[in-house]
């Protein structure tokens, strides 16, 4: 039994209005960052799975991401490389 760390990215679906992203964009000019655009704000979830193998662990995370962590009607999800975890 090993432990595997994953991170799941959950973002608003394209075409769906993202008020948070809009709010960030609206603030950018005052910050002198008007070269930044197309901002989307989503969620990032890190978790550890105990499993027999990486694939087994990944399956658990995929199921969780699809059935629980995200709402398919409004969100997309993707599983990211553990390396991507910030220090």
């Amino acid at each position, binding site marked *: 039994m090993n432990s595997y760390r994953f991170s799941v990215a959950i973002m608003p679906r394209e075409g769906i*209005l993202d008020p*948070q992203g809009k709010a960030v964009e609206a603030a950018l000019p005052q910050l002198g960052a008007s070269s930044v655009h197309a901002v989307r704000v989503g969620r990032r979830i890190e978790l550890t799975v105990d499993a027999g193998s990486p694939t087994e662990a990944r399956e658990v995370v995929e199921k969780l991401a699809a059935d629980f962590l995200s*709402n398919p009607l409004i969100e997309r999800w993707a599983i990211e490389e553990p390396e991507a975890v910030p220090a």
Partner: protein
Amino acid sequence: MKVGVVVFPGSNCDRDALHGARLAGAQAELLWHEDTDLHGADAVILPGGFAYGDYLRAGAIARFSPIMGAVREHAARGGLLLGICNGFQVLTEAGLLPGALRRNTTLRFEHRWVRLAVERRDMPFTRGIPEGVTLRLPIAHGEGSYYLPDDDLDALEAAGQVAFRYAAPEGNPNGSARDIAGVTDATGRICGLMPHPERAAEAILGSDDGLLLLRSMVESAARVEALA
């Protein structure tokens, strides 16, 4: 005629819903989320609050709770099911009602008095609401912006499943698609809305319009009981 009010650990309008159901003339009792039966309730209310903290997504966790099995069966049997605010969010997450409730476009929690246009009066929850009457109710939520893709919205409206819309003068407080404040399932026996009828069930609280909705529910349930 008995109304069951589900209590999730983070529910905070459970006692209010109980009070409202009683004002509407029903017996009412609280149902603990770990229970697996409804103690013979003829109608069930999922009350407002923050069921399991709802930090992830309102209602996301509640749909997996033990009591929801019994709630689904109740609904499948055609029992009346009302979701208020967080209860509405739970019902959409559980797939018992169409759509999703997203963060208010104002990005704020909004507490205000709104006005609801009643789209249909031939449903168990609206039967007792007189023609031409709009309902004045309070909202209190951060995630009440109703969403459904446009085609599905057309279908929803065609099927007459839009029960309530935000109306003038206050209008749409949270960016809900097509001003939708409440919807029903295809049978009209499951209803969810963001505003709080139970908070507007006594004139001294500023409005008793909510009582019209709660009474409709109680009387409809009583009718079913009589037939059975």
